[in-house]
């Protein structure tokens, strides 16, 4: 009998469980390295060369170069680790979170000021599948 993963039917959400953590180990550890200012400088000076120092997959490296946070999360990244990339770029957490929603920065900020995204219609996968 496998592990119970009731969280898999929540739309637009990836739970960072042991399986994701295993996939993303070096991606996330690369992110941790950006907590040192000298590493942030080296990364920004030559992103490709810095990434090649880490045992990451080609897809993970490309995802970092593209700053594609949704892709990186699907490849095992966790938002608290990935946030170090955004911090290196001088982005706020709101800019990072908004970048994953398909909304513009202004629209996302306006949604939050208006009270945020309602849970209604956003609780179960089937609620999203109906829309498409």
């Amino acid at each position, binding site marked *: 009998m496998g592990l119970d993963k*009731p*969280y898999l039917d*929540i*739309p*637009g*959400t*990836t*739970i*960072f*469980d*042991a399986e994701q*953590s295993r996939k*993303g*180990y070096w991606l*996330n*550890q690369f*992110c*941790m390295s*950006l*907590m*040192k*200012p000298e590493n*942030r400088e080296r990364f920004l000076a030559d992103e490709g060369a810095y990434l090649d120092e880490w045992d990451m997959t080609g897809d993970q490296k490309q995802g970092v170069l593209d700053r594609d*946070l*949704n892709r990186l*999360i699907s490849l095992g990244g*966790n*938002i*608290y*680790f990935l*946030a*170090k990339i*955004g*911090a*290196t770029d001088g982005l*706020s*957490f*709101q800019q*990072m*979170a*908004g970048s*994953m*929603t*398909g909304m513009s920065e202004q629209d*996302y900020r306006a*949604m*939050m*000021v208006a*009270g*945020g*995204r*309602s*849970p209604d219609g*956003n*609780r*179960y996968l089937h609620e999203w599948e109906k829309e498409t």
Partner: protein
Amino acid sequence: MSATVTATVYTSHVPAIGVAIDLDKTDEPYWQPLFAGYEPSRQWMADNTPDVIILVYNDHATAFGLDVIPTFAIGTGARFPIADEGWGPRPVPEVEGHPVLAAHIAQSVIQQDFDLTIVNEMAVDHGLTVPLSLLFGQPEAWPCPVIPFAVNVVQYPVPSGRRCLALGRAIRRALDAYDEPLRVQVWGTGGMSHQLQGPRAGLINREFDSQFLDRLIADPTGLSEMPHVDYVREAGSEGIELVMWLIARGTMADLAGGPAPTVRRRFYHVPASNTAVGHLVLT
């Protein structure tokens, strides 16, 4: 003689709140209502400063990466430096610990079957420093020692609500057995509803948050039975941080046969960046 829980305090620990304080933006229209909401608590805290705070928070991939992931970690060191989370360290005082009480709690709580990780060296991130800034402002030094108590809520599975409440009760028993009269506050931080990742980012659930506050005050045991998936589905993937509030709640007298707590302050505000902010002071 024993150490006594004189209050429990609950608050979100949104990093943008720390940025607003550090950059003197607290009077801006976006932030003013939030900081006004904490003002009565700051006044109350100034009149009721404890001897030591046990501050329950989560590390956000700062002191703990993926190399070591402790479920419950108690800071037993004398000092805890402020972490550089990628933006540079926050310009706030270092945190002074309370090694004697921390070691006592570690020994007592481990002997009550909670396998704490003992941490003598770690930097502390916004999860710990933003609550201190919210309640104490910008002092030269924090007004009392703080014992950092870190909970893993980053990699699933995080500890259950039931386990967190029971841990709080174990901490209370440890304090009861301490042979020096200390006034202790226990703070539970994180939450409320928020999701920082994926296409569902920005989720806020006022109704859930309001019920959570009601139940935390009046029915913590019932609340502690809520499964993880309900937190995530209803309050967002990062709303799971709210389980940590149950550790602080578990230290209160009513769970050891005493009277129900008094609500000194209750406040709720949306948004701070991506997050619903909730705050309680219970005595």
